[in-house]
């Protein structure tokens, strides 16, 4: 048997089923790598795997979960000091689903606090480093999951995407990241950021692994009344050609503000898509450039309500004093939340406050309607819309920490997608300046099987080699 770390999740599952790989040894190999992690990708690593059902679909191949997935008895802190030491009494539905499919939990991964950030620098437990260049960020907010998968510290991982938090770190770390259709995956047990946008998805080495994990994540959950049954089975992708596929490039998300190297890589893959038989043409998403503004009203507004629960009463940090209940609330929150979370709570509270609601939150919800309409019109002519995932490659640690809007611009190409509730995948699209670049494919709601097929065909043709980051 060759080095098991070099196997993808699907390959490892097949090797275990064939009797060529022992699931206990696979777990131990990853546990040792994760425990020796010098990227600060993990916030907690499991000891050993209990019994494994090798006949189960995931055959004992372990997964890493972003810290914000509640896991019974396991620290689940969402990257925040306000939840330091919190061990939930129950597990998120997604975690239970993956356990049920035979995948044990390897560990919890670092993230921007409450998933608010694009670099994982906003974690209360220190930043995660990018395995391609340790002076750079892995992206965020699922930066720990992305770095762990890219560096071979985990076979595969799950994360959450609210404005790009799966796709952007996947792009910056040279792996695959899929944000499913809103409602495809249960949000129950995910520590909430912005409930109308949050969606869990896989971060994997290749498209096949993304399909395999997604297959076992989706489904209607009575504990999340916004979840829906996935309308068809999710199979492993096999498509090698793109004949008959119509791809639309929105000028708004592929020209201005995109770094030259990222643009060049994008155009190269567009040409590849045409060689594979796809027809490619310009499309337009006229309201997409306003996505960031709408997002940075809606997400903080929802966050300000969701984060009201951290009050020092039921769980997490409490800062007491002798000045009564209100002072306990305000001091606990002042001490427990980091700078970015405070900014977003303030922004969201302001946007919802009397006299400003219509101008801010109300307008943002209307922009959301316009963005969804733009996509609807694009999908009348095209099967998928394609863009670069992130406008730039990974930036250096600290580079954007003093300018919130510069940080937010990382989400420029990803943020319109969750505003419209759509699925999108980012696949590795080569290197620029020696660093990974992502290629994003966006589809209509519940088009994941076809999205994965198209991404698979492109992946085979691009032939990205991520082994350098695992060395």
């Amino acid at each position, binding site marked *: 048997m060759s080095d098991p770390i070099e196997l993808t999740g699907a390959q490892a599952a097949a090797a275990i089923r064939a009797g060529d790989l022992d699931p206990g040894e696979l777990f131990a190999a990853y546990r040792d790598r994760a425990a020796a992690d010098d990227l600060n990708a993990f916030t907690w690593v499991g000891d050993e795997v209990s019994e494994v059902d090798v006949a189960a679909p995931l055959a004992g191949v372990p997964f890493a979960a972003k810290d914000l997935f509640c896991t019974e008895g396991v620290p689940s802190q969402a990257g925040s000091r306000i939840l330091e030491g919190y061990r*939930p*009494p*129950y597990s998120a539905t997604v975690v239970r689903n993956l356990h049920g499919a035979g995948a044990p939990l390897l560990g919890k991964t670092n993230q921007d606090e409450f998933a608010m950030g694009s670099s994982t620098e906003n974690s209360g437990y220190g930043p995660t480093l990018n395995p391609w260049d340790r002076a750079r960020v892995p992206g965020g907010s699922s930066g720990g999951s992305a770095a762990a998968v890219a560096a071979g510290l985990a076979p595969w991982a799950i994360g959450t995407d609210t404005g790009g938090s799966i796709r952007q770190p996947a792009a910056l770390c040279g792996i695959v990241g899929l944000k499913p*259709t*809103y*409602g495809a995956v249960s949000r129950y047990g995910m520590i909430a950021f912005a409930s*109308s946008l949050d969606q869990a998805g896989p971060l994997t080495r290749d498209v096949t692994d993304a399909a395999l994990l997604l297959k076992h994540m989706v489904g209607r959950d*009575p504990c999340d*009344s*916004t979840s*829906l049954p996935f309308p068809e089975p999710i199979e492993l992708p096999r498509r090698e050609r793109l004949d008959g596929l119509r791809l639309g490039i929105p000028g708004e998300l592929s020209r201005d503000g995109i770094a030259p190297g990222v643009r060049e890589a994008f155009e190269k893959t567009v040409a590849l898509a045409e060689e594979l038989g796809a027809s490619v043409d310009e499309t337009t998403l006229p*309201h997409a450039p*306003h996505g*960031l*503004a709408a997002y*940075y009203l809606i997400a903080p507004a929802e966050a*300000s309500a969701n984060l009201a629960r951290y009050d*020092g*009463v*039921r*769980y*997490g940090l*409490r800062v007491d004093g*002798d*000045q*009564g*209940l*209100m*002072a306990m*609330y*305000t*001091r606990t*929150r*002042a001490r427990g939340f980091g700078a970015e979370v*405070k*900014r977003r*709570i*303030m*922004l969201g*509270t*302001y946007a919802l406050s009397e006299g400003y609601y219509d*101008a*801010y939150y*109300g*307008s*943002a*919800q*209307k*922009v*959301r*309607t*316009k963005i*969804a309409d733009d996509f609807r019109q694009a999908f009348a002519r095209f099967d998928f819309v394609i863009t670069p995932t992130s406008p730039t490659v990974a930036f250096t640690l600290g580079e954007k920490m003093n*300018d*919130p*809007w510069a940080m*937010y611009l990382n989400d420029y190409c990803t943020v319109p997608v969750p*505003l*419209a*509730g759509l699925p999108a995948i980012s696949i590795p699209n080569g290197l620029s300046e020696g660093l990974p670049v992502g290629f994003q494919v966006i589809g209509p709601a519940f088009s994941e099987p076809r999205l994965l097929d198209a991404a698979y065909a492109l992946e085979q043709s691009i032939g990205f080699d991520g082994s350098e980051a695992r060395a």
Partner: protein
Amino acid sequence: MIDRAQVEHVARLARLALEESEKDEMARELSGVLEHIEKISELDLTDVPPTSHVVDVTTPLREDEPTPCLTREQALDQAPATQDGGFLVPSPGASPA
């Protein structure tokens, strides 16, 4: 755009204690972000319905049947302070205005 007094008002609404030194910084940062956000006011949004939920679903109903839930011990297990089987909090009466 947002001044110090507004920061203090919003912080009170958000139950967030800010240091004196943080307030001007917060006003500056929020104003900077709002400057970008306000560009949406240039859009004509009359007669556009707001989206609060992206997927068309009707509110699902279920039978009102008791199912297992957390025990009292589990619910209190992570609390910073408990007493007599409940969450213990400081007196609300002692709150400053």
